[in-house]
């Protein structure tokens, strides 16, 4: 038996494969396709304090090995989430992360404060990096000061571990990750999507009503992997690797680069059983390579020349 579990310090995952926020609905959408107990965890869709309608369509555009989205974080808001969804999620034996959003620092804090009062949530993922939403014109993950400030504020309130989700749209992601760590974040997850654009050459209109959206999928994997590698060298808190993971091999690349867990996003759309397949492929990989504990892979990239 191969031991796929990973110890994050603040939390133990039965395996390191987590479904990423915004690509896994509220989890329930996947119940017809997989046994949710089989996956390491999942992150529910980004949650604001109040319900939000999201952006007008078209919200999606397909690109070469990628997907642009500008969903605009529609959702039912924190109250209805705890009333309608959370009770249904408690029956699953997996780690539940809630992706917390806010248009202001105060809203981040408000959502966490509210959710603190409900059972059945294991940790918060702070979405300070969504490229489609503006926090007084900025998104905190674009600079170290704003990152520090919002993480610090939320950490003081939170009764649960905090994972800070970083944006790849920056010059120096290491510096942002370090700020999150200093502010008390228990882990960082990276990357969110890359601000992108596509134009319909017939209509001359952007393919996304919002003009720009975030790029995800296999196209971004090489950039995401580089960022995870860089960050893992420079922080001591666990790093969750995200970006274009479609197969167990892809996940292994992130572990070798230093990720302690991975989040699987776009792949869930293409195959609702993607997470479960990736877990199987990880097991096979470990078997073939004669590895007993998946944790032995973490950071094991061989950069000697």
């Amino acid at each position, binding site marked *: 038996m191969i031991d796929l579990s990973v110890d994050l310090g603040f939390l133990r995952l039965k395996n390191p494969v987590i479904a990423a926020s*915004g*690509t*896994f*609905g509220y989890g329930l*959408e*996947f119940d*017809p*396709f997989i046994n949710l107990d089989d996956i390491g965890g999942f992150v529910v*869709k980004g949650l604001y304090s109040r319900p939000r*309608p*999201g952006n*007008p*369509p*078209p*919200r*999606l*555009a*397909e690109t*070469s*090995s*990628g*997907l642009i*989205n500008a*969903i605009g974080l*529609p959702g039912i808001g924190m109250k209805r989430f705890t009333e309608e969804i959370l009770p249904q999620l408690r029956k699953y034996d997996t780690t539940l992360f809630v992706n917390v959003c806010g248009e202001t620092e105060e809203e981040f804090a408000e959502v966490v404060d509210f959710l603190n009062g409900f059972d059945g949530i294991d940790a918060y993922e702070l979405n300070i990096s969504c490229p489609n939403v503006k926090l007084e014109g900025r998104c905190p993950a674009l600079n170290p000061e704003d990152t520090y400030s919002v993480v610090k504020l939320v950490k003081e309130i939170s009764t649960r571990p905090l994972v800070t989700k970083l944006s790849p749209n920056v010059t120096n992601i290491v510096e942002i990750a370090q700020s999150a760590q200093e502010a008390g974040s228990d882990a960082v997850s990276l990357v969110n999507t890359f601000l992108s654009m596509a134009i319909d050459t017939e*209509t001359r209109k952007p393919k996304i*009503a919002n003009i720009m959206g975030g790029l995800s*999928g*296999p*196209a971004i994997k090489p950039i995401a992997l580089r960022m995870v590698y860089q960050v893992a060298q420079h922080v001591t808190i666990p790093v969750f690797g995200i970006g274009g993971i*479609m197969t167990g091999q892809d996940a292994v690349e992130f572990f070798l680069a230093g990720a302690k867990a991975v989040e699987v996003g*776009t792949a*869930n*759309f*293409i*195959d*609702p*059983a993607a997470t479960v397949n990736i877990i199987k492929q990880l097991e096979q990989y470990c078997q073939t390579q004669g590895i007993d504990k998946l944790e032995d892979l973490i950071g094991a990239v061989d950069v000697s020349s």
Partner: protein
Amino acid sequence: MQKDPSARIVNTKHWGDYFLFSIESPIIATQALPGQFIMIRVSSRDYPLLRRPLSIHAREQNIIDIFFQASGLGTALLSQKTSSDSLDILGPLGHGFSLKGKEDLEDREVALIGGGRGIAPLFFLAQELRQRGAEVVVFYGGKTRSDLPLKDKFLKNGISVSCSTDDGSFGFHGFVTELFEAETEKKSFNFIYACGPEAMLEKTGQIGLQKDIPAEFSLESMMGCGFGACWGCVTKIKSKMGSEWQKTCEKGPVFSAKNIIWLNENK
């Protein structure tokens, strides 16, 4: 709503760039309802990435049919598949046409209006309606004669079809909505079901309103997942609060015509 990773193509036919595939998938076929759709993986690689949504065109025991036009990269790839190839599909997905019981349909006059590839879901629907005793007339429009490849299939199955072409090369010369509107002068319809280009549906909706005929439309929308997980596929629908975005893959693809708010800007 299940995944069938190896649904086998058992038959293929084509007319120009229109294709009809019969696919063996017991788990999906037995659950399918008219107006529902499937999501097909057109490549096992990373490009094209997303599955393609296609309506269930017909169902016969363990077999479902799809009817599609090879219009872009994904449908072109799909069209290259041949008998005995296997397909990875999800289905049946979405809410289909609301099929009233026999008591409501028996001897009722039902108009089915299909434009181009929009004819796809209407065959399955026509068959189910007729089983419930309804009188079905299909209005089938295309740009030109070769856009009406399913005409004979309807006729062979005893379903009456009125055709129109934009260029007059076959049937009524003009839009299918004009053909239908003319027909409403002669005959009174109890229901309209339609699928096709947005302009056709909008016009059909107006006719339905004027004549007070309830109508349901199957809509297309760019879909990320097809099963409610991505929130990418929304349609603007009237609600108590004015309007709301509803997931086309979950609440649709069939919506009641009177609830749809058309967004011409985004087309």
